[in-house]
């Protein structure tokens, strides 16, 4: 899989946030921003991860996501994440 560029991940985070809550200004979604200050509700914070995982075909761990407090943390997680394990792949080994 080609490396994921931070710029494209940041743009995807902004688009996902905007799609989940139209009242949030995507311009405030910068790497330095605290996720709690972005304004996503509890469910949107759950859904955001699903959108990013679909977009970049990666799987993010519960533990690392729990520790992520800034937009930049999420950005780094997506850039460094491995693709999700698939049953079909395992079957070929």
């Amino acid at each position, binding site marked *: 899989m080609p490396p994921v560029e931070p710029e494209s991940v940041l743009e995807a985070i902004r688009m996902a946030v905007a799609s989940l809550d139209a009242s949030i200004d995507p311009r405030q979604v910068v790497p330095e921003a605290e*996720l*709690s200050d972005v304004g*996503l*509700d*509890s*469910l*949107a*914070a*759950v*859904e*955001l*991860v*699903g959108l990013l*995982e679909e977009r970049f075909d990666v*799987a*993010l*761990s*519960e*533990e*690392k*996501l*729990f*520790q*992520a407090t800034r937009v930049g943390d*999420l950005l780094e997680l997506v850039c460094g994440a491995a693709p999700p394990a698939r049953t079909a792949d395992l079957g070929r080994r």
Partner: protein
Amino acid sequence: MATQPLIEVREPADEFDRQQMGALRYREFVRDGNMKPLPEETLLDPRDERSTCLLAYLLPDRERPVGTLRVTIEGRSDFETEEHIRPHVVPGQKCAEVTRLAVDVVHRGRLGPGSVFLHLIRAARETCLAAGVRHILCVAWYKSVPVYERIGFERVEGPFRYAHYVFDHYVLRLDVHRMSPRLLAMMARLPAAAPPKLVRNA
């Protein structure tokens, strides 16, 4: 993906747990401005004893809960006397009510499967499924309504106000078979949890 659970959801085991639950509810409800301060600084009531109360802990800490939610299954007198809920109970279809959702402000907004909220909702859903519940009813203050609607709840009554609460509330109803697919997918990724142990009021 994590194989070891990060968050554990269980019922209160003793009076210490119940006091922790009451303090957490009170602290977060007052902090959010949805409840006026009370002298006793706790939020416990007789329905707790007839409900499945869920407490979420961030492991390895099993003493200080970071979230809580209460599930009351239809069939108890106090369920049936809830004035706003009663008209929305569908005859012949067992239902439950979820109340007292509170998450410690420090642990709100955690992402994806790291969400305390997600763990509590999964445990509530499993409790309801184990009891054969078809519909889940809840009363939510206006700020929480959009969240519940995206879970799959539909607004069925409101707005109205309770004593001790500052803002408008609504009754919402969820068909447990019509939850948000994205939420269900995220729940399915969580580490396996012990099945709901008790449904005291089933």
